[in-house]
Every structure is written in structure tokens, then in C-alpha cells.
């Protein structure tokens, strides 16, 4: 309400923000923002609220009536062994993949910060995997790891290494999923950390050098602490993304063998689109949302990231 702003100082000139706000009448604000707000309501807010409603019903494709069952789907989830299996798989995948990506991405950023000759070219090639769609990555790696004609097994056998059963054993399938996720997304962590490295204050390092700090000391006591906001940002962003990972699983392993790579997203997909059990699928998705909100909040509080620290 521009007219309600108290004028405690001298009357504002035509360039002050208050005056600028006065230039846009209230009805115009509604006119300008209205379409965006309507769009958001129609395509974001309504689907969100509708899917929340569906999660409280037993809606299935077969009858499509969907009676209200309160928290029935949520209660069923808690006793569903497949849900807990998917939760475990998701936790393993997120924990392992993001940890490896953070370590590798940071190491690569530090290495490329040496600015060795020709590194610009390798740097460019390095980020190629993250430009691919995860479904393509999944299908591509499935072909590469094909036990009969895949190039990976062929190469390993050529050098006398017995290839593992990449996607055929419960032990190896989740490792393979993590491996492919690491291959695709380590460049993302690298990019974020590398960008931060370029803007670190030089005077701190010069002062440390004057004080006689060694390379290792500077790395552990100056570089890494200064990089921490960027690393944290990359880790949280990746964790959220990996937590929702569906397309990679779909293309690479289709949740198998024996549900060894079924993640929460894939479980929601199966219930929704394979079994047409929409209420249950929506409940699974909302449990994922709750998990994400809780985990992100706790994580952000613990590491006390300030907005100004963001890269």
C-alpha cells in the first residue's frame, strides 16, 4: 500500500523507491502480476494441493471414485516392506553418491585450479556428462555394461580383470547405480567449487605464506574452510536431486534385481503408473517431500549456512 507508507523524512523526489512505487497504481500491479499468480495457482499450487488430497483417498484407476480414507495410505506405508526397502536404497544412494561426488568434485577443482597447460580443454570435456539427460545416461550405461556385448566388460576382460555382474546381482546393482550417478554429477560439484576457488581472497593466502604456512596447512586451514559454503551448497543441491532420482533408475536398472535399486521415486512411479494406485503413490511422494524438508532444514541449521555465504 504505497499510500500508507509513513513519510518520516523529507518528501521523496521522483527517483526514490517510494515515488517509483507510486508510479505503478495498485490496479496495474494486479494486472501485471495477475497472470503469473494465476499460472502458479493453476500449474503449481493446484496440482500440489490436489495430489495432497489424493494422498488421503484410495483413488485407483480402476474405479476412479477415490473415497476419503484419511491417513490410511500413510499408515499403510509405514508397514509396507517395499517402502522401507526403497527408503533404505534411497538413503544408501544419496549418502554414498553425494559423498563421493563432493570428495571427487572438490579434488578435481583443486587440481584444475593449478591451471596446467591444456586444462581448459579437459575441463570442458569433464562437464559433458552433466549435460546429458539422466534417462539417456541410464540407457547408455546399461548398454556399456551389457554382460554379452558391453564395451566395459570387453575392456576389463582384455586386461585380465573378471567383470562383476554389474546389474544382475543385488550387491552390485546399487553400486553400479551409485557409480553412474557419480560419473554424471561429479562435474556439477566440480563446477561450483571451482567457481568459488576463483574468487577466494588472495590476501589471506599471501598473509599465510608470509607467516610460513605450508601447502597442506593452507589447504586444510584456509582453502577448505573458505570453500565450505560452496561445497555445502553443492552437496545439498545434489542430495535433493539424488533423493528424487527416478529417470536414472528407470533407464539403468528398472529398480531391479529384486528391488535392490528401487528408490522412493521409482516406488511412487510403480504404484502410480504401473499399478494405477494413485492414492498410495501420492502418499509416497508426500512422504518424500516431508523427508526432504526435514533433512534440508536440519542440515542447513547444523552447518549454519548464511545467505551471504552462498556462491
Amino acid at each position, binding site marked *: 500500500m504505497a499510500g500508507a507508507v509513513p513519510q518520516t523524512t523529507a518528501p521523496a523526489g521522483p527517483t526514490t523507491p517510494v515515488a517509483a512505487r507510486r508510479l505503478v497504481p495498485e490496479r496495474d500491479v494486479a494486472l501485471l502480476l495477475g497472470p503469473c499468480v494465476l499460472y502458479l495457482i493453476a500449474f503449481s499450487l493446484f496440482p500440489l494441493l490436489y495430489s495432497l488430497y489424493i494422498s488421503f483417498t484410495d483413488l485407483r484407476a*480402476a474405479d476412479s471414485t477415490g473415497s476419503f480414507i484419511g491417513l490410511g495410505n500413510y499408515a499403510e506405508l509405514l508397514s509396507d516392506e517395499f517402502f522401507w526397502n526403497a527408503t533404505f536404497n534411497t538413503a544408501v544412494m544419496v549418502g554414498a553418491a553425494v559423498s563421493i561426488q563432493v570428495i571427487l568434485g572438490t579434488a578435481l577443482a583443486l587440481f584444475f585450479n593449478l591451471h596446467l597447460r591444456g586444462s581448459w580443454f579437459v575441463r570442458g570435456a569433464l562437464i559433458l556428462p552433466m549435460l546429458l539427460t539422466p534417462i539417456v545416461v541410464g540407457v547408455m550405461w546399461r548398454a556399456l555394461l551389457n*554382460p*554379452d556385448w558391453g564395451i566395459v566388460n570387453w575392456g576389463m576382460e582384455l586386461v585380465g580383470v573378471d567383470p562383476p555382474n554389474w546389474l544382475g546381482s543385488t550387491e552390485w546393482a546399487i553400486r553400479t547405480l551409485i557409480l553412474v550417478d557419480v560419473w554424471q554429477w561429479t562435474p556439477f560439484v566440480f563446477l561450483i567449487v571451482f567457481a568459488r576457488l576463483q574468487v577466494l581472497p588472495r590476501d589471506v593466502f599471501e598473509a599465510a605464506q608470509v607467516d610460513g604456512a605450508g601447502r597442506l596447512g593452507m589447504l586444510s586451514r584456509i582453502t577448505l574452510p573458505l570453500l565450505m559454503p560452496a561445497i555445502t551448497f553443492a552437496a545439498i543441491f545434489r542430495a535433493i536431486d539424488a533423493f528424487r532420482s527416478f529417470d536414472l533408475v528407470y533407464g539403468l536398472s528398472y529398480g531391479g534385481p529384486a528391488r535392490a535399486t528401487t528408490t522412493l521415486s521409482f516406488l511412487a512411479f*510403480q504404484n502410480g503408473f504401473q*499399478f494405477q494406485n494413485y492414492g498410495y503413490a501420492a502418499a509416497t511422494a508426500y512422504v518424500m517431500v516431508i523427508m526432504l524438508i526435514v533433512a534440508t532444514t536440519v542440515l542447513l541449521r547444523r552447518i549454519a549456512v548464511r545467505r551471504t555465504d552462498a556462491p
Partner: protein
Amino acid sequence: MDQQRADRDDLAAQAISDVLVGRMTRRQFVQRATMLGLSGGVIAAVIAACGGANSSPSRSVAASQGVGASSAASGAGGAYDPMKYAGTKIRILMTGDENDHRALGDKVGQLKEETGIDLEITSPALGPLIEKTLQVLKAPEAEFELINYLGFLTTQQVGGGYFEQLNAYIEDPAETDPNWDFEDFADSNLKNVGIYDLENQKLGAGSDVYGIPGLHSGSVVYFYRKDLFDAAGLQPAKTWDEFRAAAEKLHTDEVAGCSFIGANDFSLATVDWYTRFITTGGQLMTGSPTTKDFKPNLNSPEAVGALQMLIDVLPFAPENVTTYGFAENVDAFSTGKIAQMIFWSTIAGPVFNPETSLVAETTDVTPVPAGPGQTPRAILGGWGVGIPKNVDPAVKPAAWRALTWITSKEMNKYFVEAYQIDASRDSTFNDPELVAKFPYLPVAGEANANAQPIETTILNDFFAMNDVMNVEFNKALIGDQDAASACANVQRQWEAILRKAGALA
């Protein structure tokens, strides 16, 4: 015709007479004629001579249950006019997961030329198709005049009463092309996707027709490498013991003795396990959902035995067979790495095509093996096409016209010829020209005729139940549990699903 009849012995002549006067259906005639050793050319000539005249009493489509010809077919009584509905637009919702939409797309222009009807094809993948179909069927007015539905979902979709009864159209000579020939559809497919007793909720019972088989059907056949079998002095297996023995004998470092779907895949349970299960005397379900005693028999000796058979042939299968899905199996067989396997007959096309297969000349097909005293048979696949009840009544006759056109003999033949899609018509399976080109067709036709729908398709939870089987069986194959535990786990999980669905008290 007289000359041909005279050339045959008495039995053959009797069969020809019976089919000509309508005492025998064409399918019965084809079976009888095959047994009597009549050639494909003679069979085809006799069937052609039948024209559209013969109607089997068991296949009577006389208007019934209150639906008369006059109520359905607006032009009853007049002569058949192919251009009667020229200028009408018909929209079909069909699967985009197979080649059917491509084959149909090829012929849209011809349909327009011959009937004046514009056909618009919408072909999503299976999941979205099911969802969209249910939306369309339950809307106040359908946005698609024709819907192609999966046979596994007939009970849900046709049994829900959402499709128009077609008997009156079939009977009406003004609405149905005299050459369309309803009698020619395979009985098994009609009972799987077409005929339904709504009052008693029984698939395949009665004579009310709600869907027409198409655009493809099919079952499971036994593919084997005749060069390897000949070299080893073996005959294709007729029993599962022979199958295992052949696998052991033919297994080398280069060629696996056998293969199957070992991955967590739809076909693991429905093709490899189910075929072994029913051909060794297994019965998947007993009771009925309506009486709340629909009980699975997954812990039966036959169920465990069928899974054990797969475990027993693991040493003679490709090393990574537990990762083999549909594509891997076809690839491995087509590149000559497998000596024998049972699989959907629909893969015969690529396997027998020299451009896509290294073993096109050395492969043969035969019915699947079976236990002692059992008929070789397997699961019945395929699709149906119907007209939603909520289609604008004025457009329904035009929808029927389009439906008969796309399920005609000519189209069915084109589907097989151009894309090797599994046929839905007896005449296609036995077409001399096609058989000369694709020798597997009569065997595929026999498998199709003997096939049976899997009992759980009458439940909405069919796909979820199938997934449970695939996961547990896959676990057994990769050595995480034994066959008995796998079957017990499926039994436990199925009972929970059935109780929740109200099908088991």
C-alpha cells in the same frame, strides 16, 4: 471345389462339406484339415470358398439381451455402402508400445479412400494409455470413438460395462462389410477380449460381444535351432525333462543350451514360469473374487516345481541370464547364442528376418513342451478394440465402420506381412502366401488357439501381483532364496493383496 473334394479321402471330404454348409467353424476345419494333412493351399481355397456364409452355432451373434439390430445400426435393412460415413472423423486411442500404431498409420490414407472416414490415432505408452482409457470411459462423452484395450484388462474395462454391445452391428448387413467375416477371429481371442457376460461378470461366457480382437493377439511358442538339434541328433523337446536334457547336451562356451527371461521382468512370471506351471498341472487360483475365496496356489508343488525348473537350467543358460529381459533374450537368440527357448510368438518376425537375425535360416518353432498328459499351452496375450458406450450415438455406426475396416482380413494380413505383428484371425495364421514367407505362422496360430488367459487378470491388482512374482522369482534365480521360499513369499504377498481387494476373506 468338387474337384478338390474328390481328391481327398472320405474324412477330408466330410470336413470340407461340413465347413461349406456351416456344420463346422473355419477354425475347427483348419484344425481337422491340418490333422488330415491337407495342404495350406487347399485349406485356404476351401476357406475362401466359404465366403461370409458360414456361421457357427456356438458363435451366434444374434441380437440378445435386449439389444436389437434396429437399436444399434441406424441403417439396418439397406445395402452395404462403404462410403456411407464419408466425412466422419473417428479418433482411436491405442497402444504406442508395439508396432500396431505404425501399421495402422500406414493405412490411414487407404481407409479414407475406401470409406471416406478420417482416422486420427493417439498412441501413448501402456501406463498413460490405461489412465487415459479410464478417463475417457468415465467421462460424460467419450473423446475417442474407438479404444484399443489390453486383453489383461478386459475384465476391468469391458466388465465395467463401459463398452457398446456389438452384436447388432455384426448382424446388420447394411453396417458390416460382407467380407469382414466375424467367424474368422480365433475363438481364444474372442473369449479373451470380445465376449463377456456382464450379468454374471464372466469373461468369455455367453454370446454378447463388446470388443473385436485386434490389432494383434498371440501366445508363446518354442524356438529352437534346428541345425544344432540335428547335429546333436536331438528332436525338439516335447517335455520339460527333454528340454533340460537338450539344454545340457547343447550347451557350449559359444552357445547357451537354453535361455529364458531371468530379470525382474513382466515375462519372467507370465511366460517362463506360467508356461511350465500350467503344463505340469498347476492351477494358479481357486475360488472366485465374488465369493471372497479367490485363493492363490503359489505354494503348490507345481508352482515350486516350475520355478525349480528354471533354477535347474541356469547352468545351461547364458551366464547373465538373470539380467535378461525381452530385448536381451531376442538379441541373444538372433545372434546365435542360444539353442532353445520359449517366448512370445511375436518375436518370430525379427528372429526369422535375415536382416535382423543371424539364425533366420536355422531356426524353427514348435509348440511349447509340456508335462506328461498335458496339452502344450501358455498365456494368451493380445488386445481388443471396442466402442465406448458414451460415444455420441450418431457417430457410433461410423465408429463401427472404422472398427471393421481396421480389423479386416486385409489389414490383419498387412500387419503380419509388414511388421510381423501376431495375427488375430485364423485365416491370417493359415494364409498360404504368408505361411510361405513366415513358416512359423501355423504354430503361432495353434499356440494362440490353445492359450489361456492368466487367471489374475480379472483383478485390478493384476500388474502389482505380477510384479510380486517377478521380484521373488528373480531373487530365487540370483540365489538370494530357494524356489520354495520364493513361492511362499509370493503366496503371502498375494493373499495380503487379495484381502485388501476384498477378493479373499
